[in-house]
C-alpha cells in the first residue's frame, strides 16, 4: 500500500517535473519598457567621435556593427554576412548582409561602408577611430554588397576593432542632414531607434520595426537613466525605480546578492588596474627599483580588502577573460625579502620616497599599497587628483608614479600594444625594450591564436621582468537586474545588449 502510494506520488512529481521542463518558462514575452540605471550620461551619440566608455552601452543597441563578439569572445558577423582574409592578412573581403535598413529608411550597402571608413579617416573630423583603423590603407567597393579593405601590414586585431565603435555604421543621409548636430540625432541600423535624450535625466530608444533580425527585439522601449551616485543607483535598483543596473560598488555586491528579487551576475572583465612608473624619471629609471615595487605589493590582499574579494589579482595586462593570459606565470606574489634585495641592488637599500597620483576613489587601495611598501622601506605619498587633471598629467608625462586603469579591448593587442610598445600611443611611462616591440608586433600580425598565445606569454614575462607598470587588479564585471528581466547574456565586455532581453510583467 505504502509502496503504491509512493509510486503515485513519484508519478505526480515526475509529471510536474516534465511539465516544468516543457512549460514555456523561458518563452519571452514581447513588449514592455526596460529601465537601465547608468553610472554616467552619454557624452555624444556619434560613435565616430565618442571617447567615453559609457557611450557604447546605448550604441550597441542603436547601431549595427560590422562584427560582434559572442560570450566566448569569438568574432561573429553582424552587418557583414561572411568574410575572407587574403594575401597573408593584407586584404579583407566583406560580403554584406542584404536588406538592412537604417532607421531613416536609407539602405545599408557597400557605398555606405566605404563612406563610414572615409568619415573616420577624414583628418578634419579628428575622429578617435582614426588611429584604431590606421592599418586600413584603402577601402574599395567591389559591388553593392562587397567591400575590400586593403591593409598596409597584417593586423590580427582588425575584426575585433570592428566589433566596437569603429565598426558601427552611421547613416550618411543623417550625417549630411544634421551635420554637427548628428551628435544628438543618431541614426543606425540597430534593433532600437533613438527617440530622445534629455541630458542628465534620461535617454530613450524604441523598437525599430524594420530591424533585419526577424522577431527581435522583444522590448518596446529602453530608458537609460544616469544616476551618478553608486549608493543611490543601488537604492533605485532595490526600490524598483530601475530594472537593470550598470556598475555596482564592490561593497554593495553582497547586499545585492542577499536582496530578494534581484539577480547578480559576476564574470571577469577586460579591465586592468595598475600603477604607471615613469621609466624616464628617477628613481624608476632603475630596473631593480621598479622590480622592488613589483615584489613589495601584495595583490591578493588588495583584491580581498579594496575589492571585497571581487575580480582577480593582476600580473599582466591580460585578464582571465582573455585567452592570452599566462596562468603558468607565478612570479608576482609578494616577496619582501626579494623586494629588499632589489632595493639594495638598485643602490637604495635604505629605501626612498616618491609620490603616486591617483583618483580619490582609489585612495583605499593606494593606502594598502602604501603600507605594503612601507614594510620594505619605501615611502609612498599619495596625491589625489580629479580625473581631468590626472589625465593631463599622464599625457604630459608629469608624474613619477600614477595610478590609473584601462577598460580593456576584446583583443589582447588592445590591452598591451599601446602601453608596452616603445611607439605605443599610451606608453606614457616611456618604456622601451626592442625585444618587447618585436614580440608585440609579431603577435599583432600573427593570425594563429595558439602562436599568438605563446607570444603573449613572452610579453607577460618580459613585462614582469622590466616592470614598467605594476599591474594590480582585474575588476569583476558585475551586473544586477530584477528577476522579471529575462534573456540577458552577460559578456566580459560589459555591454548591455538588449536585443534578446524581455520582461515578465507587462
Amino acid at each position, binding site marked *: 500500500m505504502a509502496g503504491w502510494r509512493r509510486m503515485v506520488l513519484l508519478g505526480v512529481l515526475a509529471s510536474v517535473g516534465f511539465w516544468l521542463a516543457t512549460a514555456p518558462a523561458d518563452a519571452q514575452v514581447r513588449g514592455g519598457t526596460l529601465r537601465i540605471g547608468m553610472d554616467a550620461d552619454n557624452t*555624444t551619440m556619434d560613435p565616430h567621435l565618442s571617447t567615453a566608455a559609457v557611450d557604447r552601452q546605448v550604441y550597441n543597441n542603436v547601431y549595427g556593427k560590422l562584427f560582434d563578439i559572442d560570450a566566448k569572445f569569438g568574432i561573429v558577423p553582424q552587418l557583414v554576412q561572411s568574410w575572407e582574409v587574403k594575401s597573408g592578412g593584407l586584404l579583407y573581403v566583406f560580403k554584406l548582409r542584404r536588406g538592412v535598413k537604417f532607421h531613416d529608411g536609407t539602405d545599408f550597402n557597400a557605398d555606405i561602408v566605404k563612406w563610414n571608413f572615409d568619415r573616420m579617416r577624414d583628418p578634419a573630423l*579628428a575622429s578617435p577611430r582614426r588611429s584604431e583603423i590606421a592599418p586600413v590603407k584603402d577601402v574599395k567597393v567591389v559591388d553593392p554588397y562587397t567591400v575590400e579593405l586593403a591593409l598596409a601590414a597584417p593586423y590580427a586585431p582588425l575584426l575585433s576593432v570592428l566589433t566596437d565603435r569603429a565598426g558601427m555604421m552611421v547613416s550618411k543621409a543623417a550625417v549630411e542632414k544634421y551635420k554637427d548636430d548628428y551628435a544628438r540625432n543618431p541614426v543606425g541600423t540597430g534593433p532600437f531607434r533613438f527617440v530622445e535624450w534629455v541630458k542628465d535625466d534620461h535617454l530613450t530608444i524604441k523598437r525599430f520595426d524594420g530591424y533585419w533580425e526577424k522577431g527581435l527585439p522583444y522590448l518596446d522601449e529602453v530608458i537609460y537613466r*544616469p544616476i551618478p551616485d553608486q549608493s543611490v543607483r543601488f*537604492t533605485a535598483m532595490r*526600490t524598483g525605480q530601475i530594472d537593470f543596473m550598470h556598475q555596482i560598488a564592490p561593497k554593495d555586491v553582497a547586499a545585492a546578492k542577499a536582496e530578494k528579487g534581484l539577480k547578480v551576475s559576476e564574470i571577469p572583465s577586460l579591465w586592468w588596474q595598475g600603477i604607471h612608473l615613469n621609466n624616464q624619471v628617477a628613481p624608476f629609471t632603475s630596473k631593480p627599483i621598479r622590480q622592488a615595487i613589483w615584489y613589495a605589493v601584495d595583490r591578493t590582499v588588495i583584491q580581498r580588502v579594496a575589492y571585497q574579494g571581487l575580480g582577480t589579482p593582476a600580473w599582466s595586462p591580460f585578464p582571465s577573460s582573455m585567452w592570452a593570459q599566462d596562468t603558468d606565470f607565478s612570479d608576482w606574489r609578494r616577496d619582501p625579502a626579494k623586494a629588499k634585495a632589489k632595493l639594495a641592488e638598485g643602490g637604495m637599500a635604505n629605501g626612498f620616497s616618491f609620490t603616486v597620483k591617483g583618483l580619490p576613489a582609489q585612495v583605499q587601495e593606494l593606502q594598502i599599497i602604501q603600507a605594503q611598501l612601507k614594510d620594505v622601506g619605501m615611502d609612498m605619498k599619495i596625491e589625489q587628483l580629479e580625473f581631468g587633471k590626472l*589625465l593631463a598629467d*599622464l*599625457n604630459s608625462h608629469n608624474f613619477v608614479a600614477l595610478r590609473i586603469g584601462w577598460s580593456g579591448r576584446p583583443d589582447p593587442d588592445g590591452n598591451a600594444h599601446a602601453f608596452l610598445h616603445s611607439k605605443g600611443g599610451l606608453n606614457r611611462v616611456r618604456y622601451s625594450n626592442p625585444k618587447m616591440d618585436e614580440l608585440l608586433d609579431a603577435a599583432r600580425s600573427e593570425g594563429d591564436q595558439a602562436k599568438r598565445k605563446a607570444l603573449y606569454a613572452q610579453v607577460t614575462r618580459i613585462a614582469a621582468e622590466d616592470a614598467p607598470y605594476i599591474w594590480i587588479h582585474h575588476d569583476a564585471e558585475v551586473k544586477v537586474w530584477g528577476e522579471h528581466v529575462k534573456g540577458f547574456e552577460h559578456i566580459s565586455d560589459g555591454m548591455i545588449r538588449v536585443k534578446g532581453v524581455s520582461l515578465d510583467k507587462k
Partner: protein
Amino acid sequence: MLQLIGRRLLATLPLLLAVSVVVFSFIHMLPGDPAVLFLGEEATPDNLARFRAKLGFDRPLVVQYGDWLGHAVRGDLGRSIRTNQPVTQAIVERLPVTLRLIGMAMLISLCIALPLGIISAVKRNSGVDLASTFFALFGFSTPNFWLGLILIYVFALVLRWLPPSGFDGTRSLILPAITLGTALAALVTRQLRSGMLEVLRQDYVRTAQAKGLADRLVIGKHALKNALISVVTVIGLQIGALLGNTIITESLFALPGVGRLMIDSVFSRDFFVVQGVILFLAVGYVVANLVVDILYSYLDPRIRVH
C-alpha cells in the same frame, strides 16, 4: 521704485563683466585639456591640434575672450563641445528643475524656521528653544550629501515613501529640497530668534503691550515685521550658497538641473558650458539680491526715501 531697479541693473553691468573675466581666466587656467578629454587618451598630436583649431583654442586668450563676450552680449553663449547643443538651450532646459528645487527648499526652510524662530524667541530658554538650538546646530553642521544619503535610506529604501532619484514631478523633489533647505532653515531660525529678541526689548513693543494689544498682534505685526529685515538679508546672502549646493544635491539625487550641468561640464572641461552657466548664475544671483532690496523697502519704509 522703477528708478531704483534701473539704477541697480545698470550698476550690475561692470560686475557681470568682472565675473566674465574671472570665469574665463579661471577655466583656462584649470589643468586638463578639453581636447584630450574629448578625443581620448590615444589622441594623436595632430588630431589634438586640429581639434583645438576647430574650437579656436589656438588663438590668444584675449582674442578668445573678446569673441566669446561679443557673442554673449547678443545672447549667444556658444555651443557644448560635446553635444553641439547651444548653451542657452541647455540652461533653459534645466532651469525649471533647479528653480523648483530652490523654491521648494526655501519654502520648506521658512515653514520650519518661522514658527521655530518666533517661538524660541518668545519662549526663551524653554524646551522648544533648546530643541530649536539643537536643530539649528545639527542642520547647519550636517554636510549636504550625508543628509541626502540618510534621507534616501530612510524615506526611499526603508519606508518606500518617496523615490530615491530622478525628476518626476513635485514628489521627487521633496527629499532633495529638504536636503538643500535644512541648512538655510537652521540659519534663518537662529537669525529670526536673535532678531525677535532684540525687537521684543524695544520701547514700542512694550508700549503696544501696555496698550493692551493682543500678543498675537504685538508679535505678528510689530515685532516680526521688524525682525524680518535681518532674515531677508540672510536669505538674500544664502541664495548664492543654495545655488552652489544644488551641484551636490542634484548630482546625488540624479536631477537634471543647472548645478549638475555645471559640474559635469567642469569635469569634461566643456569650457563654453561652464562659462555660460556661471555667467547665468551670476546674473541670477544679482537679480535675487535686487529682489531682496525691493523687499527691504517694503519692510522698512525708511529705505524707500533714500
